[in-house]
């Protein structure tokens, strides 16, 4: 696996974020560095958005010995909101030369700044500002260092259907990134047909901003070095490490995280030692990596 100029249409049933998670791990253990263009829905209410992916997920790999910027990149060429999509991203993933490196990542630190991106496609650019304003309103009582970028897309870069959303990232003093994202758009085609009689109700921008901010605060409240969305990926990365002890701290285990833990045990034979930490209300997970090497890489 690997190579350049790949292209894949992710369809319209799930957003690109759904495909990115496994792809990034597959790409790391490929034969050659991967460069792929993915088409479809970039921002969705169901799956993690590509913004979150760019700002948070890719930086997670840094902890496991994959350097950022060294061929690891995600570019949002076009945005696409459901139902029609039309987004396009360019993903670059390097390969690991031999193995990942085990992570000892338990210090969550304190939130020092909050960044974010609010986007809108094919709607009034004013909406973005309203979203940002509402989100800032909540953060004001916590921290002054809040900066949310706006990204308004029109024409081809805006995809096929109107929508708007926001992706927020809180960075802590120890460099942990905690993210939350929401997006709003028309219902998907099949759903729309079902509920034709009801007028689809969209969340107003102010409410959306507040919602996103509350979600981020809730993630922060829970603690852990990653947010709830990234638990699964974090566990997989830990399990793929060389046979050293990885130790990570997460907030409450999500169902998806638990499912991933089970899958890891079944497929990689890695069992985690899971201990709650009552003081901070977090969970500490320890595992010995499965020692997977990049076997497909060519030895010259």
């Amino acid at each position, binding site marked *: 696996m690997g190579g350049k100029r790949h292209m894949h249409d992710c369809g319209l049933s799930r957003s690109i974020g759904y495909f990115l998670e496994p792809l990034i791990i597959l790409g790391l253990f490929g034969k050659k560095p991967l460069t792929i263009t993915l088409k479809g829905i970039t921002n969705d209410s169901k799956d993690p958005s590509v913004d979150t992916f760019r700002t948070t997920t890719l930086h997670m790999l840094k902890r496991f010995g994959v350097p950022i910027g060294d061929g690891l990149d995600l570019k949002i060429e076009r945005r696409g909101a459901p139902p029609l999509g039309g987004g396009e991203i360019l993903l670059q993933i390097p390969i690991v030369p031999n193995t990942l490196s085990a992570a000892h990542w338990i210090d969550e630190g304190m939130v020092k700044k909050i960044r974010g991106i609010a986007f809108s496609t094919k709607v009034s650019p004013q909406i973005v500002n309203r979203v940002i304003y509402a989100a800032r309103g909540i953060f004001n009582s916590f*921290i002054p260092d809040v900066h949310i970028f706006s990204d308004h897309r029109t024409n081809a870069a805006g995809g096929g259907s109107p929508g708007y959303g926001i992706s927020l990232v809180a960075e802590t003093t120890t460099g942990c990134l905690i993210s939350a994202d929401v997006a709003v758009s028309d219902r998907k085609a099949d759903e729309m047909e079902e509920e034709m009689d009801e007028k689809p109700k969209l969340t107003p921008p102010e409410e959306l901003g507040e919602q996103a901010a509350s979600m981020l605060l809730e993630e922060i409240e829970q603690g852990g070095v990653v947010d709830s969305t990234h638990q699964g990926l974090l566990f997989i990365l830990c399990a793929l490490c060389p046979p050293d002890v990885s130790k990570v701290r997460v907030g409450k285990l999500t169902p998806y995280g638990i499912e991933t833990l089970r899958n890891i045990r079944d497929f*990689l*034979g890695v069992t985690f030692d899971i201990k709650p*930490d009552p003081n901070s209300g977090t969970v500490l997970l320890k595992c010995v990596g499965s020692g997977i090497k990049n076997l497909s890489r060519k030895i010259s």
Partner: protein
Amino acid sequence: MAKESGGNEQTHKAHRQHKSGASSKKGKKGKNKGGDGSGADQKKNPKAFAFTSSTKAKKLQSRTAEIEQRRLHMPVMDRSIGEPPPFVVVVQGPPQVGKSLLIKCLVKYYTKHNLPEVRGPITLVSGKHRRVQFVECPNDINGMIDAAKIADLALLLIDGSYGFEMETFEFLNIMQVHGFPKVMGVLTHLDGFKDVKKLRKTKQRLKHRFWAEIMHGAKLFYLSGLIHGKYVKREVHNLARFISVIKPTPLTWRMAHPYLLIDRFEDTTPPHRVLTDKKCDRNIILYGYLRGCNMKKGSKVHITGVGDFSLASMSSLADPCPLPSAAKKKGLRDKEKLFYAPMSGLGDLLYDKDAVYININDHFVQFSKTDGDNDMASTKGKDHDVGQVMVKNLQATKFSIDERLDQSFINIFGRTPPALALNYNDGENDERQIDIEDQNQGDDQELSEKKRAVVECDTDEDSNDNEVSEKEAGQARQSCELREKVEIGDGRIRRRAISSNFTDDVEEEEGDESSDDEDERVDNHEQLSDDSYYLEETDKDEDSEDEAVNSSKWKESLIARTLARRGVNLIQLVYGQPVSNQASAVSDSSESEQSDDEDFFKPKGQANKGIDDKSSFDDINAEDCSKFVKLELKDWHARDLIESIRDRFVTGDWSKAAKRGQDANDNGEEGDDEGAYDYIEDLETGEVYNGGVGADSHEEDKTGAGAEAEERRRKKLALRAKFDAEYNGSDQSDEEEKETENKSHGDKPKEGGFFDKLKEEMELRKQLNMMELNEMDEEIRVEVEGFRTGTYLRLEVHDVPYEMVEYFDPHHPLLVGGIGLGEENVGCMQATVKRHRWHKKVLKTRDPIIVSIGWRRFQTVPIYALEDQNGRHRMLKYTPEHMHCLAMFWGPLAPPKSGVLAVQSLSNNQATFRITATGYVQEFNHATKIMKKIKLVGYPYKIFKKTALIKDMFTSDLEIARFEGAAIRTVSGVRGQVKKAVKANLGNRPKKKGEKVKEGIARCTFEDRILMSDIVFLRAWTQVEIPQFYNPVTTSLQPRDQSWRGMKTTAELRRENNVPIPYNKDSVYKPIKRLPRKFNPLVIPPKLQKELPFKTKPKAPLKIKRPTLDQKRAVIMEPHEKKLLTLVQSLRTLHNEKKRKRELEKEKKRKANEKEKAKTEEVLKKRRREERKERYRREDKEQRRTRRKIEA
């Protein structure tokens, strides 16, 4: 070599030395320097003149730097923790060189035992911290390969009176491929030399040959001779000392894979199954020390020579040959413990999972003949030894205890299933079984000790009996006790099992924890650690018997209470438990508690929903989505909410936040339960369990945390220093080596910052690993990390072919290797291989070879290739003679960089070198493309001007479509292109009506008109399929003396079936004759000549009619000249005359000689004919006689 392999008729271009240019001068210059007297004078003290030019100095400097850098290699992380497994010493050598004798002598040296026969691995304790396992390497190639894969040290025995034999070199090559362990040569049979000088010379010669093979200064040991059929004691002693200082080298493959050298093998198939079907699949149990890396439960293994198997069960046993430091038992005599060799029938204790077998030699026990009160023996009426009877008695009691224990366990299970479930991560039945059995084993060990004690008192029959009865009574009492306690809980028994199996630090840990106590907070915090649970029981043990009963009651209630209240252990929650358990836990939590603390132990969202917990993550139909969307969000405008997470921001209280982090760290590192549950009050009895410091210690802890961290850091540093020292020490294990090193580099090579940093990082990582792992519970640790290296493992394998048991031969080392992730897949591998230079023939593509990669050996069909400059893999018919090439083959995948060893056949009667090729795996290639040249030949069918229709090149129009636009060429060199398939109307008409249009005629265009006699070529590449064939070598499934037969090569088949090699006359190479070309004179047509300008016109030379001056002039000699000429002429005539005569004489002589020769030839012919006649007659007679015999 080249001639042998290439065939006789093929000659190679001779090497021609450069006669001009820089390189030719270079050599001469050097020679001159050496040859010159003056140069030699100058070189008397070369060091003094080393620095003559700056460039030279620079070169020298870079050279030394390079040498230094080459000496360094990437540090390898040693992840093994704890006691290392025994050091494997493989003794290898050609037959009759004295391998077994050497092992026997070494065993005698270490243990003072005489070993009757060397079978299988022999484990010895060689020092306080060191064990050695001796293995004799069998002489067939399979055994050698297996032995090379496990050796930590190879003793290569060499017959000094004979010299090196092929086996030694073969073994060395095998080791080089599969990771080169430490090697030491041992010269034997040196007593045959009468002449001291000759002996010395031989030693010298062999030593230097050995050095050439391994490295300069490699250790070669001399065993001078035999005394009373044994090697000299002093020399064996020296050899043992050498063995004891050698450290194993870290080898990549072995560090990444768990493996066991099987030292005990048992067939546990139910006998009735064997009785009904002798050839039924068997269940076997394999025992051995775990080496390499940790082995997790549920991993697959490869048994060499048999195949891949998944393990039915896997458990660790007590070390049968523990280090003296680890063994604290006083009951056994030290002499006997130092030794473990079950396959050789030695070693007296056999530990199994559920039993301990004692093997007592007769001369150690003084059996008395009197039967005494043993009715069992008397009823049988046989002469039974008392000891045997006693053992039987004891066994009988043991079983009863076992049964009782089992029963008692069942009781507990029945009563308090959730409590038990806490102990095991995984509540599967079989695992539980193992644990119980482990524990039984622990008891058994105890029993065995008792037995030993009994056996050892050989004083008096009566006293003996008394003791026995006493012991029995004691045991009975104990069992009663057990039973009583069992009602309370099984904790105590369990702990005992642990302590017998593992090192004491487990106990220590628990001891530490016992200082802490439990608290009322149990009610709030639902997690009650297993340790503390057991702890209380230890406390209780100190109480008197009746008190115990009382306390047991309160404890029961306490347990019940905690069980009812406790949330579920997180591991349990995630990885699942028996259904009943989980269900109860879940219902508990959903019913009773909704407190804030509570919901945090459950998956997020469950607490909020609070309706059906299970469905949220057990639902298969739930959408797969990593994002977790909460339905209700808190209102973050609320003041109290804001305050609650205020400290999570840099704008909040830093000290508070720091405290939170610190607490968390403390908890993380010290195992969460201590801080949380250090104070327990029992509500019923009002007893307060305060662990010494209790709650007050909390703050102390915090302040102490910094100091502790500091201490830890210091410890790390110290350990690192130690590690560094060790690392350097291992580099220079040999004294000689050290010396040479010191000589060569006066100062130690600077390893550079990078190197140091790497090592430091590794050491820190290791310390961290150890710290994290040590704080886990034993069972969780095994689950998380797997069994550690050095543990004695018992592997149960089911459904093994019966042949393995049938033909099991302890002389052959049996290796069980763990299979890594992705290594059980089968696929295509690309390896770089090189034909071994001692192998007589080049290898042919598609001739099956037997390949050893990783643990496996399999036969496969390789395709050899070379990479062209444009990256294309071009197939080769044969491997190059002295070059690496690619080999593509199908087989079970091995990770890149693993060594590949190829052998053509496994038979033993091969005189020559058996190793065919060596190399390493480069990559897996699923989309592999090996191309070979193909030349399509066609003939013109019809020629238009520059277009021609070509037939016979393609068979169908479809094929033509594939090749549209391809370049073609005629023999005469006219180039062209394939256009399209010819349509019916264009000159390609069916000859008769109704006949189909001929397919496969292509229209091609050329740069010039071609002739009908031209042949047209299309040169293309076609892909070669790699045969998807591999055949595991199953040498363990057949008698060892038979040679394994796999797929045959074409040559073998031809030989067997008498099929001649297909001969194509055109394929034979003939010497190319290049005649000198004759060019006709240039003729310019007269017409053209006329038109040419004068300058270029050919000018015919003018005819000269008169003779020239030279022709006209006459030459007249002087009288002196004339005289000279006549003299010369006369001399010449004289000489000619003489020559003629001599020739005549010669001719005559030759004729006479020939005549003589003919005569003798005649005589000889006659004699030969007579001889032949005689022989035929004799043979005929014999034949007739035999025929008659047969008929008779």
